[in-house]
């Protein structure tokens, strides 16, 4: 497999703020990769750097093996759907659909028409007059129908209703299966997309704190629940991601468990449950001082 994106030691500084802080990772070609993190973690800045819309303070970025900055051969293969895309004043939905093929050579007008129908988007309405959800669906449709070899969706579905989100997931999977390509998806709705992702990057305070396959991450944390003493005894000498105690009952989130660990836990009367990707990321990016003390 070759890398669609190869980032090495990239930093983007705004004054004293390091929005992206010495980040290195690769995204393999033909995968759906989730870029997850809290508000202000650096997701959008990172995507702007990757699409040549912003300049790194330090480090190197290669997209399909070349720098994306002012590089037509790279950028014509890239589609970046931004959370707040700006359109020319007086643009109508149909104008967006008409101009999209100028930028994306794989543009499938038939597919776009189908999506417009399914998302119930009014072609003749001005972009300015669209609701938040409808504006998001314009981005989703452009992102899907462009079939760019590398597509970034930055929070593509602000304001989209549950039906439209499901439609987006279904069409993305379908079309990705028919036309394999690289997709980077940034979202806060982790539970909804976790099964779609092949690879997961988590960014926090400008740093990549998780870079792993979704499959590995699923098994990487376990919640154990039981009496306080039993839990205390079990987590001794283990790193604890999170700890909750109520009365005599305690729960702890810990890392990967071996079959022997599981047997020992069962014998100690502890209940085990798997931690969802969303919970895992909350645990990893939501640490407060108090919890740090616990896990130290």
């Amino acid at each position, binding site marked *: 497999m070759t890398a669609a994106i190869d980032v090495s030691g990239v930093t983007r500084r705004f004054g004293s703020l390091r929005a992206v802080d010495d980040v290195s990772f690769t995204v393999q070609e033909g*995968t*759906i990769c989730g870029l997850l993190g809290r508000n202000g973690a650096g997701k959008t800045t990172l995507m702007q750097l990757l699409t040549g819309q912003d300049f790194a303070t330090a480090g190197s970025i290669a997209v399909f093996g070349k720098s994306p900055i002012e590089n037509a051969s790279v950028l014509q293969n890239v589609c970046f759907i931004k959370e707040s895309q700006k359109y020319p004043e007086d643009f109508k939905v149909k104008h967006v659909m008409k101009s999209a093929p100028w930028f994306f050579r794989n543009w499938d007008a038939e597919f776009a028409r189908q999506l417009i129908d399914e998302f119930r988007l009014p072609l003749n309405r001005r972009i300015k007059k669209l609701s938040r959800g409808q504006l998001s669906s314009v981005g989703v449709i452009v992102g899907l129908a462009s079939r760019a070899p590398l597509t970034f969706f930055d929070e593509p579905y602000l304001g989209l209703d549950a039906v439209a989100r499901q439609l987006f*997931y*279904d069409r993305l*999977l*379908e079309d*990705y*299966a*028919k036309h394999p390509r690289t997709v980077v998806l940034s979202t806060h709705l982790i539970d909804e997309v976790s*099964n*779609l*992702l*092949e690879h997961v990057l988590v960014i926090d305070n400008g740093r990549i704190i998780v870079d792993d396959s*979704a*499959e590995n991450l*699923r*098994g990487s944390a376990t919640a154990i629940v039981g009496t306080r003493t039993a839990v205390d005894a079990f987590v001794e000498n283990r790193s604890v991601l999170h700890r909750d105690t109520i009365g005599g009952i305690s729960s702890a989130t810990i890392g990967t468990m071996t079959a022997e660990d599981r047997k020992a836990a069962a014998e100690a009367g502890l209940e085990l*449950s*798997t*931690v*969802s990707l969303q919970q895992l990321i909350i645990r990893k990016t939501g640490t407060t001082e108090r919890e740090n003390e616990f896990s130290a």
Partner: protein
Amino acid sequence: MDDSRPIFIQIAEQIENDILSGVLPEESQVPSTNEYAAFYRINPATAGKGVNVLVDTGILYKKRGIGMFVAPGSREKIITVRRERFQAEYVRPLVLEARNLSISTAELTDMITKEGDS
């Protein structure tokens, strides 16, 4: 899909279940990786991994250019493997819980007999 186990294993088990129940008879073609991905709303690579687990164990085989098929004798094979796991996965937890509830072995045997009759 539940969260507690890898998705590709659940896909493999689901296909095995379909073979056991006769939904997928031996020598029949199984749905494509992309069809599984769309149906379960999972990444096609994950679905492919699940199918490959069954190819490796000889439950499915590939006809080049056509697709995946259920291998002859696969039903027997699945039953043998699952029987071996039955005690650890079903009987042991059952006995453990029975013990927690002070259900005697005799009572438990009785319950199983009753359940089997109904």
